[in-house]
């Protein structure tokens, strides 16, 4: 039993590839552009093109595709459920009914909507996973902070915001590891998580989530103390050990993303949306 195995979000896979060595700001902006594009894609062709890009990036960054997608495994039931909801509940006036059963009927409009939304979630997840897999936490922080810096003028505490976000990301893994240990400790006392009816199953989660929450609060407190002990007082006057600078590779990457966006926008405009 290993919980952390399927968690890819927030994990950094060290490497020395072209993608790894890009300036974090380039990667963050590129990811933001790709995510924005995803929100407007409404045709299978555009998704197919997008898939090519994702695979190309995975190959260049030498991330095993199987691993990049393995993080989706725990999300699969939710994705399927979402797909089913769209399939049976979404409809347009001129939609054709494909299957009908009892009070439910599935229309082609629902089918397309289900497909599009599932793919969107899938791709959103993959883009962010690739970003964190190829960018260490430290450079992710530096990049985000530097990008948000201009907003300081209007009173946005950029450093604090980024710090909060990074800690949250980091804690995903820590909490998963802790959850793993807690589940084992309770299993050792004979909890059978898969036995009994719904109420019994729900009840068997208490011995797991109570220690998890308590430990999470404890950890948070310890972290506060550790940060304060090292004189953390927020972003004001903080300096950096490493300064970021963009090079020619970043220029290329930027140009490439722009070209790709143009292509996708072209496809969005030309190909009629399936729904």
């Amino acid at each position, binding site marked *: 039993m290993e919980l952390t195995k399927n968690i890819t979000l927030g994990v950094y896979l060290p490497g020395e590839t072209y993608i790894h060595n890009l300036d974090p700001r380039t990667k963050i902006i590129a990811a933001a552009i790709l995510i924005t594009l995803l929100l407007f894609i409404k045709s299978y062709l555009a998704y197919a093109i997008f898939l090519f890009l994702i695979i190309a990036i995975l190959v260049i960054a030498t991330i095993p595709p199987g691993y990049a997608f393995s993080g989706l495994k725990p999300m699969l039931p939710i994705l399927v459920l979402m797909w089913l909801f769209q399939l049976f509940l979404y409809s347009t006036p001129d939609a054709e009914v494909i299957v009908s059963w009892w009070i439910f009927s599935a229309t082609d409009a629902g089918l397309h909507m289900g497909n599009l939304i599932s793919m969107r979630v899938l791709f959103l997840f993959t883009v962010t996973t690739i970003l964190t897999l190829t960018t260490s936490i430290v450079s992710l922080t530096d990049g985000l902070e530097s990008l948000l810096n201009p907003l300081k003028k209007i009173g946005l505490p950029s450093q604090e915001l980024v710090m909060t976000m990074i800690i949250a990301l980091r804690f995903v893994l820590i909490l998963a590891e802790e959850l793993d240990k807690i589940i084992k*400790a*309770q299993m050792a006392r004979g909890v059978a998580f898969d036995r009994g009816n719904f109420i019994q199953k729900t009840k068997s989660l208490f011995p797991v989530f109570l220690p998890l929450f308590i430990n999470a609060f404890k950890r948070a407190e310890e972290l506060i103390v550790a940060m304060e002990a090292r004189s953390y007082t927020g972003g004001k006057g903080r300096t950096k050990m490493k300064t970021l600078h963009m090079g020619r590779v970043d220029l290329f990457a930027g140009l490439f993303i722009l070209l790709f966006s143009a292509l996708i926008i072209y496809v969005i405009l030309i190909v009629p949306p399936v729904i």
Partner: protein
Amino acid sequence: MPIEINKLSYSYKKGTPFEKQVLKDISLFIRDGEFVGIIGPTQAGKTTLAQHFNALLIPGKGSVVVNAMNTADKKADLVKLRHNVGYVFQNPDYQLFAPTVGEDIAFGPRNQNLPTEEIEDRVAEAMDQVGLDYDTFYKRDIFALSGGQKRRAAIAGVLACKPQIMILDDVTAGLDPGGREEIIKVIQKLHTEKEITTIYISNSMDEVAMLADRIIVLDQGQVLFDDQTRDVFLHARKLIEIGLELPEVMSITTRLAEAGFDLPGAVLSIEEAVDAIAANLQQGQVKD
């Protein structure tokens, strides 16, 4: 309830870029009533190995057979197995969840669906075994316990399941000397009086030297030594080489031996050391 392990290998995060082999080709046999110490440097695979004993982990390769039951067998009743093979984790905070000590200890037997009176009896017995006074602690808030008391409550929680084998995973780590001593006394008593097979994982060589009859030394996922405690500590140099320390008594006796004292290769207790050194001095074998 013997444990038989045959050519066990295990990898973490199998199938991901982070895959790491933790156990390599381990074979061993643990008899009834033994007190086995498992030592080794960090990342040696001690916990991973121990978690195979009660089927918290299922072998990647090889087999683990507890009481003639293969843990990889789909039909095996693992819940029952885990009641028979108790496991106390290093950090009691992973285990304790109920509002009061009594309720938390009752959690294990309750999972066995025992009648209420039986559960109460077991809680009282377990509390007595670990030296937590029933009247004082039964209704005590879990968060009002000290570090040592928490460990004892955690041990009681496992004891209440009436295990025949007990795995203790570094349960004295981070305790003050007083708390350590209390826990050790409890463990010793359980082993001698209840004849519970005890598997004791520890980073403290002093404790292992004092408690265990037999020691398994793990290094990089493999069994380096598996022998009587005294014989294992004869390999002092090798133990230091893989990053372990010697028991405190031995770190003194080995230095004395280097200085010309005629001392046995493994000295496990202070009394032994005192006798051996005194004998040397009386015979006047030591040249100044």
